[in-house]
């Protein structure tokens, strides 16, 4: 199959393609892929190199922190499953999260421009409850909570919202953000796909440099000198989230920064840790870290106590039994250090 196939498809497509290429997750898009006659094997073999290149571009853009740009709608739809295959074969959770983040951001920007009817249709496909009331969109609070929990912005906290009988009213722009967040979650939940190892090796050959790039990035991000083995479970939990590229809540960011600062980790190293965040923004992170460690505000914040960590939901140990009943994560770190290096048990 080659260029003629693509041309043939182009001629047989109705106008709807101009909507669905932006949203390759739509049922219509799936139908299109099915009708294209291109098989999973065709994609794996990479016999249609333009499609594979395009899929690969999607992944690269995410890795480089860019929103994917496109000019060829026909290719885009087909490149979507290819990107999924590539991501599944590389099988790096951090990369998948990053991809999900940028892909959802792209969709968010597109959705903002859409007509109400189209938004209603997509919300229905994603199972987001919606009541239209004039210009306002209303969604049910559980759907709101579920899809807004990773957005780090006071504006999104429930307490600043108008909620009546369970329904929250939102501007269009915010409602489509919820759709985008839902999409992000769906990507994260579906990937990696279960792909045969042999099949994967065919794909991997073509994306080797992505993997190299990913590894370099990983190495840069390891923290040195400090013995992270001895961190208390709460801090370990947060760090493992950063390693996986899972977005942190405000409280988690705050707790991690205050903790690391207290035990002497340098500012730059703290910032490095946040690099893996899907929404990493260097300037913003530096500003926030500065603020917390007191370089800009003059106030150095202390690491939250264990009971506060419990309220935040960061502490997951039961009745402190794993933590020698200490009152602060710093103390637990010191106990662990002592045990390890002085042999005290």
């Amino acid at each position: 199959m080659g260029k003629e196939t693509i041309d043939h498809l182009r001629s047989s497509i109705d106008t709807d393609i101009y909507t669905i290429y932006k949203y390759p997750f739509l049922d219509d898009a799936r139908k299109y892929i099915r009708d294209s006659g291109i098989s999973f094997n065709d994609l794996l073999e990479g016999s249609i190199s333009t499609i594979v290149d395009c899929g690969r571009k999607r992944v690269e853009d995410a890795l480089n922190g860019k929103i994917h740009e496109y000019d060829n709608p026909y290719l885009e739809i087909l490149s979507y499953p290819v990107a999924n295959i590539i991501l599944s074969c590389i099988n790096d959770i951090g990369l998948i999260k990053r991809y999900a983040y940028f892909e959802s951001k792209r969709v968010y920007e597109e959705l903002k421009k859409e007509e109400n009817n189209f938004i209603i249709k997509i919300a229905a496909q994603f199972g987001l409850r919606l009541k239209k009331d004039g210009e306002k969109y209303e969604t049910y609070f559980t759907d709101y909570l579920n899809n807004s929990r990773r957005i780090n912005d006071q504006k999104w906290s429930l307490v600043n919202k108008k909620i009546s009988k369970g329904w929250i009213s939102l501007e269009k722009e915010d409602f489509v953000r919820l759709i985008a967040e839902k999409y992000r979650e769906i990507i994260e939940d579906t990937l990696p796909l279960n792909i045969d190892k042999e099949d994967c090796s065919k794909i991997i050959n073509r994306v080797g440099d992505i993997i190299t790039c990913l590894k370099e990035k990983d190495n840069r991000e390891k923290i040195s000198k400090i013995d992270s083995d001895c961190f208390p479970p709460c801090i370990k939990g947060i760090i493992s989230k950063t390693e996986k590229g899972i977005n942190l809540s405000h409280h988690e960011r705050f707790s991690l920064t205050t903790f690391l600062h207290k035990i002497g980790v340098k500012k730059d190293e703290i910032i490095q840790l946040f690099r893996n965040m899907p929404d990493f923004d260097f300037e913003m992170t530096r500003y926030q870290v500065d603020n917390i460690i007191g370089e800009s505000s003059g106030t150095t914040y202390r690491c939250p106590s264990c009971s506060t960590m419990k309220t935040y939901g960061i502490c997951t140990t039961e009745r402190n039994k794993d933590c020698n009943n200490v009152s602060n994560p710093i103390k637990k770190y010191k106990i662990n250090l002592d045990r390890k290096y002085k042999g005290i048990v």
Partner: protein
Amino acid sequence: MDMNEVSTIYLIRKFNEYYTNLFKNKNFLSCIPPSFNEREWGFIPIRYKRMWRHLSFQNLGEMKKFFLKNTPLHLYYSSAYYEHPDIKKMSEKGWKGADLIFDIDMNIKNDLKYEKMLLLAKDEVIKLYDILKSDFGLNDIQIVFSGGRGYHIHVRDRSVLKLKSEERREMIDYLSANSLNIDNVLKKREVVGDYGIERGYYYGMVDSSWGERVWSSVITFLDEIRNMNENDAIKKIKELKIGKRDKFVKDLSKKDALEMYQMLKKSNIVELMKKDRKITTDKFFKNLVERIVENELNMLPIKNTDNPVTTDIKRLIRLPGSLHGGTGFQAKLVDNIDNFDPLNDAIVFSDENKKIISIVDTDISMKDNKYKIRKDENKLPEFVCLFLICRGLAYLED
């Protein structure tokens, strides 16, 4: 104090009698949580005070039989529904969902007397119940007196069962409004005239549920003051205390309070506020409104929930209808919270007099009576005796 043998035997007998009657009672069925066979059960036996958990029961007969054989001092079930409630490893139980639980506990203010504490807790429950209904539109809400210091609210509305821990925390944040300050409810806005932006600004109500709630109580407050006589009004205005923030460092002077009262009386400022949902920038008056807002932000939210109880989606919670082993009171399902009086309605034991040795001097109000308890020997109704034994304050003579 370790309980002596006579008291222990007595307690077991009384608790066992209670459960025997409870299990025969038809009303008991309303205490049993739905899908009880998908829940983990746990209890603390009277004699060996250690939690025994990961129990599960396939039918009620089995459960009754078990708890008559092993009389519980405390009896719990999980708010969560599981595939395998009896597996010991939490991660293997197969979590399917959980009731949404709130624990209203006035623990923090421990300088308060017990009766007063329970009254405050009741006010909190009413506030919470109203917001759960009006804002969240939730149904299937049970209010239960915990038998101890407060109340448990069980929400079994289908829409909340799948909520994760962090989503429940967001609800707590909403209810407690901890992150709210005056800027979230009263926003400074520029005045825009016919010729573009004019100089000046006003304060408008923020379009959020808390914005509305605070705004309408500000209006109610102003209306109240307006309808008072001068002295009462001045007193009430001066009671508006300084908030946590250093913004209002000074208490209002009597002169200021009087001026504010007079202004409220003779101007139509409250009517305008009702109509336009904003106030003009008169600094003097704004100072008053800021104080009221500050005050309402302390009064309106629900501040006394024990948050980890709500965010823990695998918590064990006391069974309604069971006895609280620390008081001997019933954890009572409340039908009508307005009329509910825990120190009457949750008392289940008889008033037959009994001799008991107290180790303290104390006063207790129960069943509309005040009991003066002196150290050493007392003759007291059985329900008082059991309360004291459960609290570890008294024992039966060997």
